[in-house]
């Protein structure tokens, strides 16, 4: 199956701002406003049937002077139809908030916690948004491009 991105652009022109399929990876860039409804649609629509949220990553565009600084990247996969779609949402640094997907996929819980931990993206409606890889007392978000690679912080053990 191919052409998911063009099909989605036709169906939802108001949500999809950009599409490309570089090296065969079909990608749509969508606006944040319609994002949560769009993901629900992609999961439940029988044509798209993207039943699995394979991956959630964030790219910090500070080094490339991206204007909305962050891109939140969702990789989706359809078990039944064996096709993939990448959905990207651009968010500003000042307003780095995304709607949560924990209601649609259980794994969104940990993926979103990791995105929060590493990049400081907040997920509105997440039931338990804590750090996951770093410890609670850690200051900053280490995968941001402006976090120095050599920066050391005191290791503080858990309180309890």
């Amino acid at each position, binding site marked *: 199956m191919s052409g998911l991105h063009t099909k989605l652009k036709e169906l939802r022109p108001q949500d999809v701002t950009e599409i490309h399929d570089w090296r065969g990876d079909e990608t749509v860039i969508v606006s944040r406003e319609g994002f949560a409804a769009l993901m629900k649609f992609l999961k439940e629509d029988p044509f798209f049937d993207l039943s699995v*949220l394979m991956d959630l990553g964030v790219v910090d565009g500070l080094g490339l002077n991206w204007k909305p600084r962050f891109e939140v990247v969702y990789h989706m996969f359809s078990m039944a139809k064996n096709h993939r779609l990448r959905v990207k949402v651009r968010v500003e640094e000042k307003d780095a908030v995304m709607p949560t997907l924990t209601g649609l996929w259980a794994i969104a819980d940990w993926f979103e916690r990791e995105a929060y931990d590493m990049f400081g993206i907040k997920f509105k409606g997440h039931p338990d948004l804590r750090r996951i890889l770093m410890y609670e007392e850690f200051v900053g978000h280490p*995968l941001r491009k402006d976090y120095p690679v050599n920066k050391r912080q005191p290791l503080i053990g858990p309180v309890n």
Partner: protein
Amino acid sequence: MELQSAPPKLRKESMLLNIGPAHPAMHGIVRIITELDGETIVNADVEIGYLHRCFEKMSEQGGYLQVLPYTDRLNYVSPLINNEGYCLAVEKLFGLEVTERAKFIRTIMSEISRVSDHLTCVGATAMELGAFTAFLYMIKAREWLYQIIEEVTGARLTISYLRPGGVKGDLTPDFGPKCRKILHDTREVLKEVSALLTKNRIFVDRLKDIGVMSKETALSYGITGPFLRSTGIDYDVRRSSPYSAYSKVDFEVPVGTTGDNYDRYLVRMEEMEQSMRIVEQCLDKIPGGPVLLDTEGNEIPADVMIDEAKMGRVGGVCGKTAAFDPTLGGSSKPVFKQVESDNKRAMFPPKEDTYTNIEGLMHHFKTVMMGHGIRPPKGEVYQAVEGGNGELGFYIVSDGTDRPYRIRVRPPCFVIVASLKKLIMGDTIADIIPTFGSMNMIGGELDR
């Protein structure tokens, strides 16, 4: 005064119990905080991150080739598969196709790795349930596999054998027969272990109907690999989007029915057999002919050639070909050609060229020096391979320079451990051990 003894008031409160971070049955460092009612787990929280080594941050600091050794340390039980995933992703960025022979070598090495991965997982699970013999048998078999990996790659664990564009060196001349012998021996071991475990009352009782996961929950957690297949969904990256030589070999994808610990054990046992079948078919079909050069009295061992050239005595070695030698000493040029891609911007030159002529030396420097390394075009790719635990994905963003702008790993373990809480709720504390064992948590991959 009348003494009246009031009936003792029953007080009910749950107990909090920490398991880990450093518990012998935890396979790595992970902490499970459980809330117990008697022996039953009523609530749990899984805390990870103890082995976080900033893989993704470090990957952004060096060139594309410098990331390769880090990938070894993701799933350290099957490092060759991680190498393959990363190399395929970089090749996808370049739009690069490796030679047929390299594809077969990659397939063979990945499958050997997968067998060693499953051997470790099943062996460790059995050991934690008291079957120490099975563990020793399986580690013995894993040792043979490690030996053959060492013979080809020069290392046992952190191998970095694959390269974007091919593999480091060709297989050893007697690899075929040796490998077949080892596979035969491994099969014997698996037969023995299966006889010890599969119908063993104690083993079955501890595993059966424990840690049950439904298809829907597994999909909701994005679980892949043996874990997903045990629930009855036959999804395998090797089958659904074949890479390397998987489209040219015949293999079955074993699936379970109930998704409990016992099914996961059975799926892993059968997958090892299928992996060995793949290796055998690859050995039959591998193209490229003899890897040894014809001896016209004109060849010298590669390491001697390199040593001579290092001392500046190039007169004696110039114009001669080197004898094949897959060690770090170098591999000979014609053989190297068989396994490396033609794209010079993406691959290392043969070591003989690096040490004997200026073009080779410049080529080498142009691929490794900071600011000169290999440069894929601008873009982003996601490449998935079937790792030991499921879909291992690499998402690479390239900004057109010699450093990866962003590398994101989709670790199969992460999603599996995320589901641990759900799996153990309602079970007893003793059930954590087989459930946790059968999910095959690998700290390096989980925490990156």
